[in-house]
C-alpha cells in the first residue's frame, strides 16, 4: 500500500473512531442491546446449567449477530445524515478503502463490546467463565472479522435503499449462516475444553470467509457505491 493510500486509510479510520468517540452511539447501543438480550436469554432458558452450557456458545453468537446488525446499520446511518455518504464517495478516495475502514472500525466496535459483555454474559446465565478465556477472545476476534466483512459489504449495498433496517438482517442472516455454524462450533469447543484438533477445521472455514469476503468487499465496493 502506497504512502498516500496509507494516509487515506488512516484518515478514514480516524474519522470513524472520532465520530464514535464523540457520540458513543454504536458501542453504547450495542452494549445495551446485548445486555437486554442476555436478560431475555437468562429469563427464558429455564434449564439446568449442565444443559445451558451446551447452548451458551450458540447464545453468545446469536447475541453477537443481533448487536452486529444494529451496530453496522448505525455506522452507515451516520453517513446518510446530510447525505454525507454521497460526499464521501464523490471525494477523491479509493472506495475500497472506505470498505476497509468500515470493516476495521466495525471490528474494533464489536470486539470492544464483546470484551465488556463477555463476563456479564456468563455470570448472568449462571455459567462458569471459560477456562481458556484468552483463546475464546482470540477466536472471537477472528470470527468478528468475518462477520464484519459480510455485514459491512451488505450494509454498503442496502443503506441507501428504502427500509434498509429491514433489508439488512434479511440479507445478512443467510449469508452469515456458515460463519455462525463455525463460530458456535469453535466457541463450544473452547467452553467445553475440547482439543484443538476437534474444532480446527472451523477455524479454517472462518479464515476462508474472512479472506473471501474481505477481498470481495474491497473489489466490489467501488461498483456498489458508485453514484
Amino acid at each position, binding site marked *: 500500500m502506497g504512502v498516500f493510500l496509507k494516509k487515506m486509510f488512516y484518515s478514514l479510520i480516524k474519522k470513524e473512531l472520532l465520530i464514535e468517540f464523540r457520540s458513543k452511539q454504536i458501542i453504547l447501543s450495542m452494549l445495551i442491546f446485548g445486555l437486554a438480550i442476555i436478560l431475555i436469554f437468562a429469563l427464558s432458558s429455564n434449564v439446568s446449567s449442565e444443559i445451558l452450557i451446551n447452548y451458551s456458545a450458540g447464545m453468545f453468537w446469536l447475541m453477537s449477530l443481533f448487536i452486529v446488525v444494529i451496530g453496522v446499520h448505525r455506522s452507515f446511518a451516520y453517513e446518510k445524515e446530510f447525505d454525507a455518504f454521497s460526499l464521501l464517495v464523490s471525494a477523491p478516495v479509493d472506495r475500497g478503502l472506505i470498505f476497509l475502514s468500515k470493516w476495521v472500525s466495525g471490528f474494533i466496535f464489536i470486539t470492544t463490546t464483546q470484551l465488556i459483555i463477555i463476563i456479564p454474559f456468563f455470570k448472568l446465565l449462571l455459567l462458569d467463565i471459560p477456562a481458556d478465556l484468552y483463546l475464546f477472545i482470540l477466536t472471537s476476534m477472528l470470527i468478528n472479522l468475518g462477520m464484519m466483512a459480510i455485514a459491512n459489504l*451488505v450494509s454498503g449495498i442496502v443503506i441507501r435503499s*428504502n427500509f434498509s433496517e429491514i433489508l439488512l438482517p434479511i*440479507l445478512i442472516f443467510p*449469508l452469515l449462516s*456458515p460463519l455462525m455454524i*463455525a463460530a458456535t462450533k469453535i466457541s463450544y469447543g473452547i467452553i467445553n475444553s475440547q482439543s484443538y484438533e476437534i474444532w480446527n477445521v472451523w477455524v479454517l*472455514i472462518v479464515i476462508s470467509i474472512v479472506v473471501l469476503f474481505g477481498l470481495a468487499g474491497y473489489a466490489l465496493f467501488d*461498483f456498489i457505491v458508485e*453514484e
Partner: protein
Amino acid sequence: MELFFSIRKNRIFMSFVAIIFFINLLNIIFNTPMIADQHWAQKIFYVHVPSAWVGFLSYFVVMISGFMLFIKNNDNWDNLGLAAAEIGTFFMGIVLITGPIWAKPIWGTFWIWEPRLTTTLILFLFYLGYFMFRSFGGNIERIRRQSAALGIIAFINVPIIFLSVQFWEPEIQSHPQVEMVSQPAGILYPFIFSLISFTLLFILMLRYRSHIIKFKNIL
C-alpha cells in the same frame, strides 16, 4: 420491439421444449421402473434433482451476469441476471417442496439438515431478500449494480455453506444419500433425459423472462 412469441424461432423452440417435456413426463410416470422400497416416492427424484440443477445453474448465471454488468455496463446483463434469479428461486422452491415429500416416506421425516437441502434453503431465503431489495426501490442504476454484487456474493458463498453444513453434524446426516450416477441404466437414462428437458425449459424461460423484463424497462 417484437413480442417474444411473434418471433418464429422462439415459437419453434417453445414447441420443441413442450414436446420434449411432455415425453419426459410420460417417461417418468409410465416408463421408469418402480423401486421396491420406495414406490412412487422415488419418481420425485426425476423432478427434484433436475430442479436443483436448474436452480444452481440459474444462480451461476446471476453471478456471471453480475460480473458482465460490471465489465460491460450493459443493462441487458441486469435483465438476464434478474430473469435468472427469478427462475432460480422458482426451481429452488420446487426443490424445497419435493425434497421433504420424498424424505418423509424414505427417511421418516420431512426435514433433514442435509448439506444440499440446507444450501438450497439458505440461497432461497437470501434470494427472497434479493427481490425485496430490488422492489424497495431507489435509484434504478444503483439498484442494478448493487443487485449484481449481491448475486456475486451469494454464489461465492455456496461452497462455504455446503462445506459448513457437511462438517456440522455428521450424525444427523447419516441417512443414505441418493447418488444418481450410480443407479442402473433403467433409472439413469430417464434421469439424464429429465435433466436435459429441465435445462431446455430453463433456457426457454430465461430467454422469455429476460425479453419481458427488457420490454418492461423500455415501456
